[in-house]
Every structure is written in structure tokens, then in C-alpha cells.
């Protein structure tokens, strides 16, 4: 069957890049969830991962480096009927956009944030990213990265993010399952996707991940925040995948629209004379 999200385009990714798998998983997920392309808005930033919206049929806001989350928040707020996904790489979401990432969790907008996390800068050619391991050597980090890596899952759980998960680009089927739950989850849903960079990251390869990755099993309780935090610290010999944490709480949009008697922020004509008369009384 044809996927309505398919779009033929000249894709600018390197052959073998993990981005292809994430694109495939995303298109299948949206199609299997029975969404139509016009219902979905994909917001991205800058970087190789951020080109993804150009490779499928959806509404697109390909904005600035690091700034996809504020845009996604506002699109969802203006028109809550839209399915809004912010998608970009680790440098974009956790580096340039780190401040927005942290504060969006506090707002709990009903958006999904998908991060292609390959622990390296691709488009600028191989520098360390916020998630690179300490000691990661590059043309810039010639002495090895001297900074500790950013742990997006721990930060999200510490901030009580509504939905926190990790997927792997080497397993499309499982990634689809996670994406389905994330996209249909009401509230801020983070999916950090481990994605090998075949050109610039010679350490965190498909094999490296396959040797270490395992899925959280059915015994694991994603409602337990402290356990989830503990799990999010696990990295190295063993790397857990799956849904780490879930906490259903009112979304920003649910809270806002419960307080005002309007369904959206779209075109609204105000009767100028009437509003003026009413408002001027406050200035008497």
C-alpha cells in the first residue's frame, strides 16, 4: 500500500546514515496512526537531521538552529487540532536549543520531540556534540572532549517530563512502537534516538550499539520517577532502550483552553467600535 506520507526527493544524507531509518519509522508510524499529511506539522531546526521534514509529505516549519521547540509549542497552542512534532539533531536540540528544551518540559505542551542523537556534529563536519563522550577526539577537540556529555533523559526525568523514551535507529520496528506511543501521548514526549553517524563517529557505530543496547522489559515500571532516573544513568556496558518514564498530567494546551472560551487562536475578528467602547472605560 502506498504511504500517503511518501515524497520523492533528493535526500542529502550520507549512504548508510541512521537518519534513513528514522525517516522510514516516522512515515510508517504516521501512516499506521491513520493521520493525514495535512493534520501533521513537522518543525525542525538546522543540521542533517533537521532536513527530515523535506523528505515526507507534511506541513513543515524548518526554522532556525536550536529553535524548533518554541515554534512547535506555539503552533500547537494556536491550533490544538494539529499533530505537532519537533525533530532535529542532538546539537540543535540539546546544544543551541538547550534552554528551550529545559523550559518546554516545564510548560508540558502536547508536542513530540524527536532527537536524532549521533553524538557528533555532522553538517559542520565532525566536531563534538553536547552528547559526545568525554575524550572524543575531533579536528576541534584535538585533546579529546574535555566536557562531560549531556544526559537528555536524566534531565527530562529530573524535570518531570511527561513522556521520556529512547530508541535506536538500528531497530525500525521497535522505534515505530515507541514513536506511536510518544506521538499519541498527551503532553511533552521526548524520544531520543541513538543514531550512528557513519561518516564522523567511528566510536558509536551500529555494532557498538548492538553490543550494548537492550530493551526495558515488561517488569519495568515507567511510572516510577526515581527508578526511571536511575535507569537513565545507565550507559556504557549496557544501554537501555524503550519508555523510561511516563507521567500523565494536564498539558499546557489543556490548561489554557480550559480557562478561555475559545477553541483556538486563529482568525478572530473583533468588533472594533464595541471593543473600543468597552476597553476605554478602564482609562477614564
Amino acid at each position, binding site marked *: 500500500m502506498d504511504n500517503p506520507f511518501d515524497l520523492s526527493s533528493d535526500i542529502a544524507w550520507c549512504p548508510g546514515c541512521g537518519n534513513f531509518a528514522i525517516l522510514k519509522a516516522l512515515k510508517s508510524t504516521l501512516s499506521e496512526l491513520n493521520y493525514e499529511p495535512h493534520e501533521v506539522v513537522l518543525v525542525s531546526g538546522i543540521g542533517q537531521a533537521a532536513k527530515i521534514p523535506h523528505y515526507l509529505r507534511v506541513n513543515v516549519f524548518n526554522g532556525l538552529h536550536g529553535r524548533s521547540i518554541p515554534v512547535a509549542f506555539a503552533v500547537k497552542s494556536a491550533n490544538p487540532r494539529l499533530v505537532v512534532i519537533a525533530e532535529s539533531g542532538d546539537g540543535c536540540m540539546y546544544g543551541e536549543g538547550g534552554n528551550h528544551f529545559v523550559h518546554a518540559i516545564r510548560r508540558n505542551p502536547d508536542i513530540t520531540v524527536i532527537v536524532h542523537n549521533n553524538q557528533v556534529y555532522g553538517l559542520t563536519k565532525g566536531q563534538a556534540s553536547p552528547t559526545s563522550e568525554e575524550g572524543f577526539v575531533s579536528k576541534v577537540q584535538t585533546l579529546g572532549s574535555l566536557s562531560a556529555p549531556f544526559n537528555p533523559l536524566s534531565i527530562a526525568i529530573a524535570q518531570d517530563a511527561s513522556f521520556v523514551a529512547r530508541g535506536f535507529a538500528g531497530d525500525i520496528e521497535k522505534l515505530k512502537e515507541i514513536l506511536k506511543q510518544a506521538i499519541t501521548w498527551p503532553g511533552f514526549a521526548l524520544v531520543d534516538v541513538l543514531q550512528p553517524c557513519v561518516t564522523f563517529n567511528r566510536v558509536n557505530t551500529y555494532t557498538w550499539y548492538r553490543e550494548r543496547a537492550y530493551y526495558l522489559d515488561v517488569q519495568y515500571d515507567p511510572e516510577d520517577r526515581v527508578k526511571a532516573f536511575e535507569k537513565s544513568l545507565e550507559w556504557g556496558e549496557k544501554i537501555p532502550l524503550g519508555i523510561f518514564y511516563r507521567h500523565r498530567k494536564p498539558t499546557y494546551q489543556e490548561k489554557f483552553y480550559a480557562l*478561555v472560551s475559545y477553541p483556538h487562536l486563529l482568525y478572530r475578528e473583533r468588533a472594533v467600535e464595541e471593543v473600543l467602547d468597552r476597553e*476605554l472605560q478602564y482609562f477614564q
Partner: protein
Amino acid sequence: MVDRTVKIGGAAGQGVQTVAEILSVILRRSGYYVFSLEDYQSRIRGGHTFTQIRFANQPVHAAKKSIDLLVCLDSLTHELHHSEVAPQGFILGHVSPQESSASLGRLIAIDFEKEAVNLGDRIFANTVAIGALSRLLGLAPQRVEDYLAQVFSKKGQEVIEKNIAAFRRGAELVGENKLFGEETIDPPENPPRFLLDGNQALGLGALLAGCTFYSAYPMTPSTGIMNSLASKAKEYGILVEQAEDEIAAINMALGASYAGARAMTGTSGGGFCLMVEGLGLAAMTETPIVIVNGQRPGPSTGLPTRTSQADLHFVIHASHDEFPRFVFAPRDPQDAINLVIRAFSLAEQYQVPVIVLSDQYLADSKVAYQDVVVTEPVKRPLPVDGQEEYCRYALTPSGVSPRAIPGGKALVVVDSDEHDECGHLTEDLTIRVRMHEKRMKKWEAMKRETRLPFTMVGRDVNLIGWGSTWGVLWETRKELARKGIEAGIIHFNELWPLPQGLRDILRSLVSPIVVEHNYTGQLAELLEQETGVELGERITRYDGRPFLIEELCARVEEVWGRG
């Protein structure tokens, strides 16, 4: 004719603004036109702050230097301002031990706090002050008492009664002293009905324009716009979001606008610096947005609570590469309402960013009006109902493409990268050229859109200005006329693109003098560059305070005398 100025001073947190606000409303309700000026420091408690209220029985548009009544809520006010008091004026309140003998005005020493404590609580000190100054000004006590009852209505009957007792005590302490003596006070034939400041006006304009989304980071002097819209959030369904920074603020506003909301953001120069990346995004994605920049002196943090007009060059050129934008600067609160409405209309008509330049002087000054007139129609091109083959950046003769919003059949694809007609990223340089030309093509029509300056040509000298200085130019002109100098005014509230036909106007002017709150004369430079007409003289002020009528008048006379 009545034309008097009251200055109320004290430490931050003492209630200067409360006393001034109550007095302004009572004066307005007593039939006077009012113009108030706020001068405060970037602190919450202590230091020195004052509000100057000019009232008259005809419309007033600027502040005077000479004070008729100085109200000292602390002794520092007395020390700092006693020399500004006109002979026959009064000084009321706390007296500085060092300066009492040197004052020109008549002194009525009252320790407002001590009186308040005698009445039960020092909290009533400001009401004692209101009582004293109301009596000195000869305001009808019943009208003041009614207003105090209204102000304190939420606090219960006991608080109202105690305030009224404090008010009466203040009046009693003044005795038979009167500012006006035997002078009769004629209420004007058309008394003012409304009193509002620039920030309230900018908020009201946005509300009337149909704004449904405002995201900002608090920054003086623009925070008042956010307060103004936030107070209407529930009633009108406006989302007012306090963003984590100005970068988020502008990106949010753009996201909301893309989705179909009428969106605005506001900041001051430093915040605008952070927004510049987003300004370019608005231009590249052709997403309509209105951005208010309330100017203050800088660069960097500068003087957070003072006024300036030094961001004109900055906002005209901000961002890399070239793109069309509008820059407006309202002349007063009434004009601010209309210009914001116009900003929204044009932002959507041309799908470009529109920057509204305010400043602390405009933001905080209250002006009384007989009528608030909305002349600007609220125009909003409806988004098109695109079909599946819709392309957001379809090439058109005007450069403006039909705009759809997501949610309909059309897929709306926008990109900060150079893109093709359908919004997809491209590195095809032929397309790049076509798209850049498409965006720049709007410029020609936009140039015909901006309106010529307010023009009243003078025989002897011509004052050129922009934005918030309109009122002081207007009053200075009247003052000069009394001295036999006929001054003209050329005043811009639409600055970019510069309106067509300026060269002929500028060339015809006798003794043009450009008056601005900056060092270089930015408007002067801009006009000279764009029209080739040399404008010569500048009168500038950049200490963070606005031009006062007497001062500007003296400087014009000086320049004119030299010529």
C-alpha cells in the same frame, strides 16, 4: 488659562507612582488635560524617583521644566528639586535640613508619615499627601473622596474610612494656602474623558487588531504591553506567554503566526538584539509578525529605565542580507493604537516583519484625550484555502504569494533555508535568485505604502523629528510663536521605507533642525542619505531624559540666533 506642573518625588517603593496615578485621574475627572512623565531608577526600593504631572484646561502634549508644586515624599526630593520650583509655587512635605532656606517657593512642611502614624498606620502617608495637594490645587474634596473609595473598594469599608480620614487630615494641614490664589479655573468646553500611556495604547491597538498571541520576555520599558494584553487574556482568548528568553519569544510568535494567529512580541534594544535571528527568519519564511522595540539608552544594558531614540539605524538594518520591512514610531498613545493596527494589517498584506519603535518616554507617559479615535481599519487578508498542489512561495507579479495556514488541504511548507516555490530547501542558485527577487519585489509597493510625515512648514525655522517627540515639538512651536518665531514641524511616524516625495518637502525648508534623543542624529543621517538634501543642524539629547518644552525652545532659539 490654567497650565501647571506638579512634581511628586520619593524613594522607589514609597508610592510616588500611586500618588501620581490617583492625582492624574482626579485631575482628568476634574476636567483638566493631563500629561505625566515618569522618571525612575532600575531598583525596587530606595533611590530617587519622580513623576511630573502637567495639567491644563486645554490639551497638553509634553512636559515643562518649571514646577508649581513640588510634593516631597522624602527629604531627598526637596534637596534635588527645590530649585526647579517657580516663584509663587509651593513645596509640600518632607524638608531637607540643608536646603530649606534656599528655596524659591513657599514651603509647607508636613511629615506625611508622622501624620499617618497618628491616624493609626504609616500606610496612610500617601493619602495624607493626596489630601494636602488636593487642597492646594483647589480640587473638589467630594470628587477625590469618591475616587479614593473606588480605589480602595476591594479592601473593605474600614480601609476606605481610614483613607478618607487621612485625606481630610492632609487637607487640614494645608489650611488656607492655595496654588491658584484668585485665579479662576475654567473647565474646558470639551473636557478630556480618557487617560492612557503608550504601553496601554500599544496593548489596546493589538487587541483591536485581533492579536491572539503575545510572547515576550519582561524588559523595561516594554513589559507594560505584556501586562496590558495579559489583563485581557481570559476575556478575549489571548495567549500571553512569558518566554525563557527573547529568542524563544520571537520564535514562538512566528510559530503562532505560521499556524494562523495574529502574533506580536515586544522587547527593548537588548532583547531585540537576541531577536534579530528571528527577524531574519520572519523575512525568509515570509511570516507576518509585529515586533515592538521600546528604546532605552545603551548599548548593552545601558540605562534600563530611561528614554532614547538611538535604535533607528539598528532596526532598519538588523539581520544579515537584505529584506523588506516596515518601521513605524508612534507619536503618542493615540497614534500608537492606530499604528499597531496598521502594523498588523501591513505585516499580513506584505507577509513581512513590522517593527514598532516605542521608547520609555512614550511607554510611560500618560496623556489625556477628549476622544480616542481609531482611524485605521483592521484589515486582514483571509488565508487562502489551498489545494493539494499548493505552493507557499508561488511566484506572483507582486512578490506576495497566497498564504495558507496548516490544517486545511494544502500542505504549508516554510523554510529558513533558501527554498523553492513549494518551500523545500534548495541549492539551485537560479531558484535562489528568483526567490530573493520575489522577496525584494515587495519593497517597491511598500515604498508607496508609507505615509508622508506630519508637515506644517514654518517661515523661520523647521523642526524635524520622529516618534515620541511629536508632542514636545508641537508645544515648542507654540512657545516659539509667542516669541515671534514661526517654527514648522516635519514629524515622521512611518520611517521605513521612507515615504516617497520627501526630497521636495525637505528642500523647501528654511533652517531645518533635526531634533532627536540620540547622539548622531540618526533620522537626519537617514534623510540625508536617502534624499541627498543636507539638513545641517541637529539638536540632540541622550542623557536618558526627554526634551522639556523650555529647554528645547531655548536650544532652538540658540541655533536659530546663530543662523
